[in-house]
């Protein structure tokens, strides 16, 4: 059951991710990315990360990507043009090597006997996250809130109509 679920959503994620890369129109890429995020949310659930799964959908898919879509619509951006040099020659071999190495080491470092089953880890609920967040990780949490504030100010300053 878990394997089937994993395979289905891993497949969706990979296909959508490929789509992100190959689609020429940004809005198609954005929608594919939403697909990746959605399937990742399911995988998170499988890993017992309920809260992160919900946050993934609410924050990532529901807010950040909407922002992307909004901007794409606002700029009325069309399909991209083939201009400038291509990085296919240095990039593609490097990527293949990178991926191969990573996959190899992952397989070596994590022998197949560590298994994931649904329900194998149940401490990913909002309560546990909240407790950790407001005790051990209070300082990072506060720092991120400051970061968000700075980001808001920065975004407003940047997006202002006229910059005196």
């Amino acid at each position, binding site marked *: 059951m878990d*394997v089937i679920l994993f395979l289905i959503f891993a497949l969706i994620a990979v296909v959508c991710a490929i789509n992100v890369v190959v689609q020429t129109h*940004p809005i198609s890429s954005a929608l594919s990315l939403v697909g990746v995020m959605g399937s990742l949310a399911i995988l998170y659930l499988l890993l017992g990360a309920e809260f992160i799964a919900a946050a993934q959908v609410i924050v990532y898919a529901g807010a950040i990507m909407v922002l992307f879509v909004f901007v794409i619509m606002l700029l009325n951006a069309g399909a*991209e043009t083939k201009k400038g040099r291509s990085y296919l020659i240095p990039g593609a071999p490097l*990527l293949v090597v990178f991926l191969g190495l990573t996959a190899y080491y992952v397989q070596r470092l994590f022998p197949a006997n560590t*298994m994931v089953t649904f329900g194998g880890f149940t401490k990913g609920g909002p309560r546990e996250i909240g407790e950790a967040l407001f005790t051990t990780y209070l300082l990072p949490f506060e720092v991120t809130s400051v970061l968000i504030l700075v980001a808001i100010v920065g975004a407003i300053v*940047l*997006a202002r109509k006229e910059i005196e």
Partner: protein
Amino acid sequence: MMTAVPISWFLTLSAILFALGVAGFLFRRNIITVFMSIELMLNAVNLSFVTFSYQHKEVAGHLFTFFVMVVAAAEAAVGLAIILTVFKNRSTLNIDDVNSMKN
């Protein structure tokens, strides 16, 4: 019938997604798509975090994921604002046209 998934599968998936993100970054020319590729990489990393969290039966990985999300939100806000400004000033979204750092 195998009912459990080896943990390395998750990590491999994460690696694949990350590589695809890098590919998007390298091969695409539209700033917004490039930006989205970064988001894809972040997502891939998040998946590893959550997987590690499962492996160690620790909630810490979730928190890192959470922080990554928050930072991604901030980054998206500022980044998109920058893109808007760039587009306003240059009326192009091609990343190779934005090269005033050169020279």
